[in-house]
């Protein structure tokens, strides 16, 4: 297990370096002078020189990437174009709000999706199964920002049940929770349907296996067979989806935070884009990628821990 974890760590670092390289070198796509284009209307000679210096635009490619990573490891993610102050603080302060949203959405998606999927698999063709299948398609396909706005319209504007704006910062736990309700629902909507479907198909596969027959042959009660024997195996492929889910959720947070006026990484990147504050955009994207790659690696580890066959297969083959 430890060996596998170390291998995953090495992989993580490699991917991070590669992704950062793409990010840092994006500016090479800009025709002409990158610094002045990025600054736009704020492109005074001083500002241009300052930006070129802080972003190392004159350096060769690999040096730029190495410099960025070195600085990032030391907590320096760039300099704000407008305020001239370090970006790191701004970005780090935006993380908790987005994480709360993502975490809440995952909890809701699993909390609702898994039981629905289990019920659908336990009685295929039954009421839960058919209605879940029907809803799942609708839930999955509709864009989350569409759902977010509609929810806002119905529950905040028309009914006044939930607050319209903000994350409820500084107002205490319950208020923050209250502000989280609609955004979490909007973001998790598609995932509930998706997880329910995955759980259902995975569980149906498992229920057809020989070892389930063995469990039933020894008189184990149906509930035990379903949860202890079947779900334990069926849930494993679903877990690997969670890694992708986090990335997807963070992406959706860009819209949802903007729509609900919440602070967070998504809102930060978006507003920085509008303000033409490129270092903030770059830093924000970097943090997002870091979180995404990290989460995927954690999920892979969890996957291997839960299913000993993965570890065994990995080391037997000797390749990745």
């Amino acid at each position, binding site marked *: 297990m430890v060996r596998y974890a170390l291998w995953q760590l090495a992989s993580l670092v490699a*991917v991070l370096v*590669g*992704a950062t*390289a*793409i*990010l840092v070198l*994006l*500016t090479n*796509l*800009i025709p002409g002078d990158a610094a002045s284009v*990025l600054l736009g209307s704020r492109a005074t000679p001083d500002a241009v020189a300052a930006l070129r210096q802080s972003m190392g635009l004159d350096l060769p490619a690999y040096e730029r990437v190495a410099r960025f990573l070195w600085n990032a490891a030391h907590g320096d993610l760039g300099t704000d174009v407008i305020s001239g102050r370090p970006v790191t603080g701004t970005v780090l302060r935006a993380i908790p709000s987005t994480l709360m949203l993502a975490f809440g959405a995952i909890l809701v998606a699993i909390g609702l999706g898994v039981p629905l999927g289990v019920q659908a698999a336990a009685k295929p063709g039954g009421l839960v199964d058919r209605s879940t*299948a029907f809803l799942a*398609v*609708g839930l*999955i*396909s*509709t*864009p989350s*920002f*569409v759902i977010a*706005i*509609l929810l*806002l*319209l119905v529950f905040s*504007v*028309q009914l006044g049940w939930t607050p319209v704006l903000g994350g409820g910062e500084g107002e205490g736990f319950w208020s923050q929770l209250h502000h989280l309700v609609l955004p979490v629902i909007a973001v998790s909507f598609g995932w509930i349907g998706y997880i329910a*479907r995955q759980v259902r*198909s995975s569980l*149906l596969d498992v229920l057809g296996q020989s070892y389930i027959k063995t469990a039933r042959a020894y008189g184990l009660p149906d509930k035990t067979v379903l949860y202890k024997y079947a779900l334990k195996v069926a849930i494993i492929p679903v877990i690997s989806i969670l890694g992708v889910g986090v*990335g*997807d959720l*963070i*992406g*959706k947070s*860009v*819209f949802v935070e*903007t*729509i609900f006026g919440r602070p967070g990484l998504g809102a930060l*990147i*978006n507003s920085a*884009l*509008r303000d033409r504050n*490129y270092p903030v*955009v*770059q830093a924000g*994207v970097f943090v*997002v*990628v870091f979180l*995404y*790659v990290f989460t995927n690696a954690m999920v892979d580890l969890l996957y291997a821990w839960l299913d000993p066959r993965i570890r065994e297969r990995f080391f037997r083959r000797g390749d990745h």
Partner: protein
Amino acid sequence: MDELVSIWANPTGRVGLIIVVTLSICAIFAPILAPYQPSAINVPIRFSPPSTTHWLGTDQLGRDLFSRVLYGARIALGVSVAITILALIVGALLGIAAAYAPPLIERAILIVFDLVSSYPTVILALAFVAVLGPGVTNLIVVVTVVFVPQFGRVARAQALALRHRSFLEAEVILGASPTRVLFHYLLPNILGPLIVLASMNVPSVITLEAGLSFLGLGVRPPLASWGSMLYDGFINLNQAPWPVVISAGALSLATLGFTLFGEALQAAFDPQRGGNR
């Protein structure tokens, strides 16, 4: 074309097909079907609800929503289909190249795929827009890049599987040129799964285009994208709910229709997997 027949036979597939065809007709024939010019401003009647003169009401500048929805279909479908086809072609070429190229080049292509995939889709799109700026052409480039890896991987897998089939080797022995082998034999066999993947991806492309336009980073006014219409309605939400509801409805209908169609198409091509709903 018997795939189309089985899609029609499938109840949800039928719904999807009807929606797709209807929206396509709206998009293609928008200039004929639209009662008003989509950019015709008429401030006195702004925010009016659906009526006999304006079937879906008007937006914050008094523009007819029905006409804007029709023209919006042009953007949504036109741009999305263009992007999907582009991503398919680029992905297919890269994928086939990866399958036949020496290991070093193959590794390089695969690494690029992996790195692009290590970004959440929206975030990558935002990063590109930050550098390239907003606008339809940039939008097309950005979203295409985001979707290329998926097509590339599928194309590569298919090409690898076919590579060892004897009929290809026979053709080469008989003196067929590489281009002929590529276009006449390889592509037709790879195209199937790629087309299925394309149809499954169209809803995501529509969503991404609408999302970027919503943020003001995609289609610019006066062009009417459903995404920017949604934004216009959103900032005026307390004035009137109609613009939001109409554009939300249009987007949901499009994504639903293409999703149902895509799933039915997948079931038609691969009955074994399609049954697992």
